[in-house]
Structures are given as C-alpha cells and as structure tokens.
C-alpha cells in the first residue's frame, strides 16, 4: 500500500516542461465530442455551469422585460393574463432555481479547488452528473414554456392554487419536477464542496487560513444540505397529490395548505442566504485585493458567516405573517428576523474598515462591491421594516416587497457576482475584461437598477399588488410604472453591454498573466487559465495570505504520482497531508445516468410507473459508473 514502483515517476523526479506536460496529459480531458461529454475537470464543468447559469439569467431577464413592457401603461394589452402568469412564474423560478443558486455553486466548482490548492474537486464524476441534471431540469422548464405548458403558479407554487383542483393539466407538474432536478444537482455539489474544503486543502492551510470565499461556500453548502431537502419533500408531496391522489395539502381529507408554506419557506428563507453568503465571500476577496491589505476582522467575518447560517433557519415564518399564525410565534420570528441584521451589519463594517485602512484601487470589480454595499444596506433596511408584523401585513403581496427582495437579491448577490466576474474573468480566460467598458457597465447598471426598483417601494405603499397583469388608469400608478419600465429596460441594456465586454475581451482583452491584481490567494499562484492539473507542484501554505507573505514563491509538497491522477488528502483541522488518494478519470457514465434520470423524472409526470422502470435503468447505469474499469482504480 505504500510507495511502490508502479506509482513512478513521482513529481519530484521530473522537472520543468516535461513534468508540466506529463501532468497535463494525466489530468487532461480527451479531445473530441466524447471527450468533452466525459470530462470531469472541475474547471470545464464549472465554466459550463457559469455559462449555462448566465443563459438562464438572460432568459429570466427577458421575461422581466416583457412583463415591464406590459405594465408600462395602464390597461395595456401586450400580454394577456394567462401568459403573464407564466411569465412571472418563469422569471422567479428561473432566477432562483436556475440562476442564483447554480451560479454561486458554479463559481465554487471552479474556484474552490484552486483556492484550497488541490487538483480536482472531490467526487468529480458526481460533479459532472450534477451539471447534466441541472441542464436537463432547466431545459424541461423552458421547453415546456415554449410549448405553452410553462408553470403559472408563481415561483413558490402555493397550494391550493397549484394543487389538482385549481391547476389541472401539466403546468404545475413541470414546476415540481424541475425542483427535483435542480435540488438533486445542488445537493450533490454541496457535498462535493464540503468534502473538498474539509479534506483536500493544501498542506498547511489550517482552518484559520482558509480564504473567506471558501469559508462562505462551506457554510452555504451546509445550508443547502439542511434546507433543500425541505423543498424536495414538499414538491414530491405536491406531485403525489396531483398524480396519485394523496391528500397532503387537501384540507377536506385532513391535509393542510399551510403545511406547504412551512415546508417551502423552511427551504425558502435559507435559500436567500444560500445566494447571499457566497456573494459576501466574493466581496471579502475583492475588498482585500483592491485595498491591498489583509481583510479586517477575519475571525469576525467567519463567525458572522456561521451566525447568519444558523439564524437563517429561524426566519421562515416571516414569509407567513399574513396567514394568521399565533402572535407569540410571530413575535419570535420578528425578533430573529431583526437579529440577523447584526452579523450582516458586522460584515459590512469589516469591509469598510478594510477599505479605510487600505489603498483602494477603484477598478470595476471594486465599484460593483461599493454598489453592493449601498444597495444591500437599503434592501436590508426595508427588510427590517417588513420583519415587523403590522408593517408586513400592510405591504404583503405589494410592490414594496418586490422592491425589497430585488434590492436584497440584485444588490446583495448580483452586484458582488458581477464584481466577481470582473475579478476572476482573467483567471478563467487568461484575459482581462475591458475596464473602460466596465465602468460604463457599472454606472449604467447601478443607476438603472435604482430607477427600476426604487419607485416600486412607493407603488407598493400606494397599494399596487404584485402579480397583476394590468391596472386601471384611475389608480394613478401610471407614471411611476412607466419610470420603472424605462429603468428596467436600461438595466437589461447594462447586461447587453456586459455581454459585449465579455465577447470583446475574450478576443482583445489584455493578457492577464498569473496574478494581474496582485492578490493573495492560491488561485493566483498558477497560470491563467490554469493547466488541467491546476498546480504543477502542490503549494504548501504557511499564512492566511500566502502570495503576499511569500512573494518569492511558495514551498511545495512533492511525491505525487505523475502518470496517475493522485491528490493530497489532508486532515480536517490542521491540513496535515495524510493520504495520496486517487481521483477519478473522465467517464461518460455520469452523462448516461443523468440522461436516464432526466427521462425518468419527466416520464413520471405522465405515469407513476416511470419511477419504477426509470429507477431500475438508473440503478444499472450507476453500477456501470462505479464498477472499476482497471485495477489502478482499486489502489
């Protein structure tokens, strides 16, 4: 079991180009279509995840543009009520399930293994599988919409509206099964990230030296593991009610409609933090790099992440204040909803302190972070308002709430994400995004976002309900709605500008080099884009900001096999190297299994027996996946 001749050569027996090329051959993805479909490289899968998530962002954004066109003037007839119901459902569902969570996990899939200094993510085949399942789930939703059977019950699909009595046909079933797809995918990625962070860190990267984005993703992954089973259970119950006649949500037979809301929001509120915490991780990295000093209050930031993670499970009932719950319960949830502002506020003070004490360089990336701080504070304040029961009861289901959660989600997650794209684009592509176009992009996005969403607060206070396809001129909401619509068009344009910047910079952007921002974390210790093996020699970490504390270069851990995929497994707390574990080779089985899973899920909408025969086929494909193909896999 110990070192033997079969593992030779080791990476300390070769050097220079020969070592690099042989490692790249060992860890590379085979050429051709089959190779592309079989890849298990976290960077390729991560890139696909990111691009796919942005395509869904574009589709969801377009559905918002159509809605805003309809609402621009009173009594408009551009879109009818049925199509409008589908549009707002597609918009919310796509944004939450196909964009926001996947894009954060996508960045983690790409970045976490690089940031912790390992050669691939844990369970890379499961990672490939999860991408395909996600893709198929997204396709199911959008193909259904094209066929005019897109769901029309809102992104949280409340019963009894989504139940068998009020939503005949297949529309709500499509929604429920899309949930199953995306949650399977998200849960699998969460497990991969947790194991990668806990067991695959470079030697010496003790728990208190983990980069803050990695901490954020670790906490987020735990939130996913504890929150997402709730929505899977709920959507499975919904589809069983609809297809085989169970009565989980049917009050006439002992079921309960509020049970749906409890299960949904037990997932749905942590979901907000599943989207927000990765963004805060990005902010911490960006702020430290552009202030050129270590982040202020590392320990406080980590504790804040964990505190937010715990508290996020104590908030779900504040989505249900209008359902007439007992007052004591409501007070408890008001208190916890206000309490979560404390660790979030703490993070903001740490970032401000970092910038205050540093020498900030106002790149586009940092501008988006500053835009985030301003916008998120406004969204956070309106959040403290709606945490109070009497205020919430007044503005429930009005545009005030729409304004609040767009400030939180776009301000809190999309702005940092865009900052993150400007920051890591050079690592992923090897070229910098244009700063000139970037500045235009930022200012257009920031101004138009506020033009589009700030007036919604006022509309909500004036009583305009959400999810109405039109309104009468006498209500007096026309002018503000027109301003909102113009703002939203401009906001969409800012994304077009962003796309142009990406396309332009992919061809013409400045060549980045390994570390264009003089950042301190390990992903910048390798070339841009990184080679298939990520690091030709695994770095050894001796401080929290390794590239700043060792400008002359990092010491290396050597002795891994060159011709066999091998990575260092380390201990959880101290990151002492413990094993040379094998990492799986490329395989087509994950795609086959994901395809069969997808067919079984879709077929189960039409016949419950699909679960049985689909399960058998998926089982056989899983055996094919796990069965060792050569004896070297047994080591």
């Amino acid at each position: 079991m110990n070192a033997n001749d079969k593992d030779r050569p080791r990476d300390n027996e070769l050097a220079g180009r020969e070592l690099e090329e042989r490692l790249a051959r060992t860890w590379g993805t085979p050429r051709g279509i089959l190779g592309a479909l079989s890849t298990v490289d976290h960077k390729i899968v991560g890139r696909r995840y990111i691009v796919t998530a942005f395509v869904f962002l574009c589709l969801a954004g377009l559905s918002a543009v159509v809605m805003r066109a309809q609402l621009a003037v009173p009594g408009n007839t551009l879109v009818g009520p049925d199509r409008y119901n589908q549009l707002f459902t597609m918009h919310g569902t796509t944004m939450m399930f196909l964009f926001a969570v996947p894009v954060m996990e996508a960045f983690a899939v790409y970045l976490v293994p690089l940031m912790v200094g390992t050669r691939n993510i844990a369970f890379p085949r499961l990672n490939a599988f999860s991408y395909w399942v996600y893709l198929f789930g997204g396709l199911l939703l959008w193909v259904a919409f094209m066929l005019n059977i897109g769901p029309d019950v809102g992104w949280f699909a409340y019963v009894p509206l989504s139940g068998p009595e009020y939503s005949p046909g297949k529309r709500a079933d499509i929604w429920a099964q899309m949930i199953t797809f995306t949650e399977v995918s998200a849960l699998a990625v969460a497990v991969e990230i947790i194991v990668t962070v806990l067991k695959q860190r470079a030697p010496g990267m003790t728990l208190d030296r983990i980069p803050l984005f990695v901490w954020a993703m670790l906490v987020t992954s735990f939130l996913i593991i504890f929150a997402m089973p709730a929505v899977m259970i709920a959507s499975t119950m919904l589809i069983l009610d609809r297809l085989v006649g169970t009565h989980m949500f049917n009050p006439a037979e002992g079921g309960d409609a509020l049970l749906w809301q409890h299960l949904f929001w037990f997932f749905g509120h942590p979901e907000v933090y599943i989207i927000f915490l990765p963004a805060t991780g990005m902010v911490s990295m960006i702020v430290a790099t552009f202030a050129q000093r270590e982040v202020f209050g590392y320990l406080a930031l980590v504790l804040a992440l964990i505190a937010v993670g715990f508290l996020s499970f104590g908030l779900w009932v504040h989505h249900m204040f209008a359902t007439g719950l007992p007052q004591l319960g409501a007070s408890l949830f008001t208190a916890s909803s206000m309490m979560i502002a404390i660790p979030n506020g703490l993070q903001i003070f740490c970032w401000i302190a970092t910038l205050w004490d540093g020498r900030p360089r106002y790149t586009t990336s940092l501008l988006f972070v500053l835009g985030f701080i301003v916008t998120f504070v406004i969204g956070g304040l309106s959040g403290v308002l709606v945490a109070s029961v009497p205020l919430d009861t007044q503005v429930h289901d009005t545009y005030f709430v729409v304004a609040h959660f767009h400030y939180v989600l776009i301000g809190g997650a999309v702005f940092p994400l865009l900052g993150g794209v400007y920051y890591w684009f050079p690592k992923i592509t090897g070229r910098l995004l244009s700063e000139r176009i970037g500045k235009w992009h930022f200012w257009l996005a920031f101004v138009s976002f506020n033009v589009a969403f700030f007036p919604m607060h006022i509309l909500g206070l004036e009583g305009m309900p959400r999810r109405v396809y039109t309104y009468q001129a006498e209500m007096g909401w026309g002018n503000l709605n027109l301003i909102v619509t113009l703002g939203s068009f401009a906001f969409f344009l800012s994304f077009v500008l962003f796309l142009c910047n990406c396309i332009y910079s992919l061809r013409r952007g400045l060549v980045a080099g390994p570390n264009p921002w003089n950042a301190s974390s390990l992903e910048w210790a390798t070339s841009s884009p990184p080679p298939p093996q990520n690091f030709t020699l695994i770095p050894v970490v001796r401080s929290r900001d390794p590239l700043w504390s060792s400008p002359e270069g990092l010491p290396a851990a050597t002795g891994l096999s060159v011709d066999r995929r091998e990575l260092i497994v380390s201990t959880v707390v101290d990151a002492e190297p413990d094993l040379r574990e094998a990492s799986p080779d490329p395989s087509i089985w994950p795609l086959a299994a994901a395809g069969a899973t997808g067919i079984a899920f879709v077929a189960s909408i039409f016949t419950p027996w699909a679960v049985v025969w689909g399960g058998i086929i998926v089982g056989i494909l899983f055996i094919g996946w796990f069965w060792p193909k050569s004896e070297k896999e047994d080591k």
Partner: protein
Amino acid sequence: MSERPGGIDVSGLPTYAFGSRMTMAWGTAGFIVLEGTGFALAIGAYLYLAVINPAWPIGVAPPSLFWSTLVTLSLLISVWPNHVAKRSARNENLALVRRDLVIMSIAGVIPLVLRIFEFRALNIGWDQNAYGSILWIILGLHTTHLITDVGDTLVLTALMFTRHGKGRRFSDVEDNAVYWDFVVISWLVVYIVLYWVPRWLTT
C-alpha cells in the same frame, strides 16, 4: 516552487485508509446528513398533521404491529453481521469480507421482503386521507433507502468476488456498513413515529 525551503515530501503516504481519513467517508456522511434531514422533515410533517387534526389516525386503527416489528427485529439483528463485516474490512481479510457480505446481502433482503407485508398491513391506502398519505410517503421514503443500500451491498459483494476485491475496496465495504447503520437507525425513529405515536395519541 520546488526548491523553496519548507517543502515537504508526501511520497511515503498511503493511498487509502479507513473511516474519516477518506474523502468517501465524508461524502457518505454528507448524504446521510441530507437524507436524515429529509426524514426529519417528513416526520415533522406527520406530527404537524397529527396535531392539527382532531383525531389521529384519521378514521382507521393504527397500523398493524406484527410485520413492522418483524422488520424492526430483522434490522436490529442485521447490525451484528454488519459490524462483523466492518471489522473484517478493516482487517483487509478478503475471505471473511466475502463471507460477511453474502450474509449482509441476505440480511438486507429479509426486511425488504417483510416490508411488502408491512405495506399490506397498514390498514389504509395513500389516497384515502392525509393520514394514509403521509404514512405511505414516510414508509416509501425508508423503503427507497433500504432498496438503495441492499442494491449497493449486492454490487459490492459481487465486486469483492472479482479481481477488484482489494485495496480501497475494503474501505468501500466499511462505508457501506456505515450507511446500513443509518438505514437501521432512521428506521427505529420511523418505527416509533408511525407505529407507537398513534397508539399513544389514541390512549
């Protein structure tokens, strides 16, 4: 990077180990936690419905104890050979691992067969009322886990009789044993909730 001071040599490290030293054990633990959360939420839904309904179970007697208790006993007994298999795997004793896995395959199929009779003794269909629905859903959820792990055990048994029965496969046998413990423990909770809670509520 190679020549910097402070470098370390990992060539002497083993390529596999047991328990929490392996990534696979952590992956298994991750799935156990998320599936355990699923069980907890389903049981939460059961108790929620039990509390809001004036009578529980709704309109029928509690489910029969006979088959469910047999399932429980068969699962409890299986814990012993399961731990023997785990020990044999740790000792990397191939002959014993093969024997133990054959025993565990049988020990897994027995509760699965009994489960068929258990479903038939529930006294209620899933489409009769919400009580029947949640009863079938939770029992179905556990049965899915049972089928999954029995399938896994059968494949692993076959694998250990091939040339692959060596090295890190012993560690896989151990992970499979840990998962079986989860299937048994989760069942004990489910058994109490589905079979004893309604009896306590009616008395």
